[in-house]
């Protein structure tokens, strides 16, 4: 945790510098007749962010924060495993939306989580994975009239059947 806090402060300081640089693409000072330039607000806020990062590093050096006094790892093996399996599952879900549609992605993600990570029974996992996207389809597309991504054309036959029910 100790090293992690300093590294995080360093990363955020770099981010602040990047934001200052990007903000300075527009004027950052006071322009007579038009007021503060378009980049002034984000530039000076980013500058405050940078100062805060230095303060955090200073506090770290003085051992004032709990993390700066902790010798525990940021993530142990269990932490890394859950981050990779759960975080990776979410990334996979979002990536699948453009291919097999939002509802297809929901079905696959729910089945993966319930059956593989949650260790639930096959019947329960399959039921929830199939019923939830269908219920969400009727809620979003039917009731709220919000169209979700339908993925690549091979999903069209399924959507045609569902749209026939709504319209």
């Amino acid at each position: 945790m100790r090293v992690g806090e300093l590294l995080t402060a360093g990363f955020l300081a770099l981010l602040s510098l990047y934001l200052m640089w990007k903000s300075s693409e527009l004027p950052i000072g006071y322009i007579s007749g038009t007021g503060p330039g378009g980049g002034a607000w984000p530039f000076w806020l980013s500058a405050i962010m940078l100062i805060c990062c230095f303060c955090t590093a200073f506090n770290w050096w003085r051992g004032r924060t709990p993390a700066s006094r902790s010798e525990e790892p940021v993530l142990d093996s269990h932490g890394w495993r859950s981050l990779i399996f759960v975080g990776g599952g979410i990334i996979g879900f979002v990536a699948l939306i453009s291919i097999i549609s939002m509802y297809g992605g929901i079905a696959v993600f729910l089945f993966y989580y319930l059956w593989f990570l949650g260790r639930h029974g096959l019947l329960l996992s399959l039921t929830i994975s199939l019923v939830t996207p269908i219920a969400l389809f009727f809620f979003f597309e039917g009731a709220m009239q919000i169209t979700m991504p339908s993925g690549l054309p091979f999903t069209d036959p399924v959507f045609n059947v569902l749209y026939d029910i709504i319209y």
Partner: protein
Amino acid sequence: MDVLLLLADGMLVSLQPLNLMMIIIGVTLGLFIGAMPGLGSVNGVAILLPVTFLVPPSSAIIFLAAIYYGAMYGGAVSSITLGIPGASTAVATTFDGRPLAKQGRASLALVTAALASFVGGTVANILFTLFAPLLASVALSFGPPEVFALMLLAFATFVGLGGDDIPKTIFSICFGLVLGAVGFDQISGAPRLVLFDYNGFLQGIGFLVLAIGVYGIGEMLWTIDQTRGDVTATTPKMTMKGVAADAKEATKRGWKGTAIGSLLGFFVGILPAAGATPGSLMSYGVAKIVSRNPEEFGKGAVDGVAAPEAANNSASTGSMLPMLTLGIPGSPTTAILLGGMVIWGLVPGPRLFVDEEQFVWGLIGSFYISNVAAVLINLAFIPVFIWMLRMPFTILAPMIFVLSIAGGYAATRDMFDIWLMVVFGIGAFFMRKFDYPLAPAVLAIVLGPIAEPTLRQSLLLSSGDPSIFFTRPVAGPITVVALILIFLPALKFLRRSPAKSKNPAS
């Protein structure tokens, strides 16, 4: 006396069978729309606006106002049960509502939210009825310096909310404000902060993208990591006796927060462009400051649920005031309501109270009826919301992820934003590990787009002289209070000895 007669007439109008039916349907729809992460009163009112052309204008606006009411009640549901604020107005409710739910006291949190919302709505209705024209003129006297001073006050309360680590709290506020500046410069129209030259940033970063990323994804990842996947399922129970006991406890422990939220929320709500979010946040901050047990805030304080919930309902009624009396919408939802009124041939403004007396008082009467309907319907549905919490965590967690992604897409309709949500979620997980408070960033992204133009307009008015924030009669005291609130915790932090801070008990 005239006012009471007019109000009685208005209530009779809103109790007509068609209008009463519209109120019940509107409140119920609004409750469920508001409870859905990603969807709020704006979505409900906008989507159902075309439906209202089937009924007379007075019934139509009553229906939309009922949806607005229901959604304000519903916003607390996802904040408490799922820990995801569906709308910016419900962010402050998560601070104590979610901890209460984790302690198995979700029913207390939900009952407190419902009762505080009811009281907030009722107080606002009474103030609205008695002082509408007078308050409208007060609201109109708020220029850019006053609104910026108010925003500064809201940011000052963030510093108090963010815990002991002041640099990290200020970093979080500034980060949220910078994220709110992404897109286009509002004054010159030039592209600004198009990060890594991705065109997706041109449309800006919405509040929901950050809120769902932080609370829907980051918070869940953090919970899974902290509990090592072995979340002890809370088994809240719900009985009539339990509701009565919760109501008693909510009244006893939440009256102060309710009173603060009801009054403060209304006065912030009537200010054009301010709305319920700063109102609920400031009420939370003030409730914490005046509390005898401020250390309980953030860990499940009943006042911490009551104050923002009373405030956001009170503010939602308050924001109707500038819309009806001046034609200035106080929130995005009232902007859509305003559009609806114009379509129906009603012209909001000072003449509305004279030219369309029956319509105006029918609407005001419906606020009272909607408020009663909303609290009853909300209390009736609490067992359903509680039931969600009884689900095993390995079912609840993927459901929250799915609702976050689907609800986030429904709100923004852009896959870029969904990817951004995932990035924010993972980033929030690591920032939380190192005690960076994230709520201030989420609230700052909402208030940033209000604060920046008012600051620039004020400085333009004063030719760059910042004393404008101190010399004006309304802006001056607000600015001074805000600066005191900002610098007091900072001074305390600097004066605290290292030895003392090393002692966890301190």
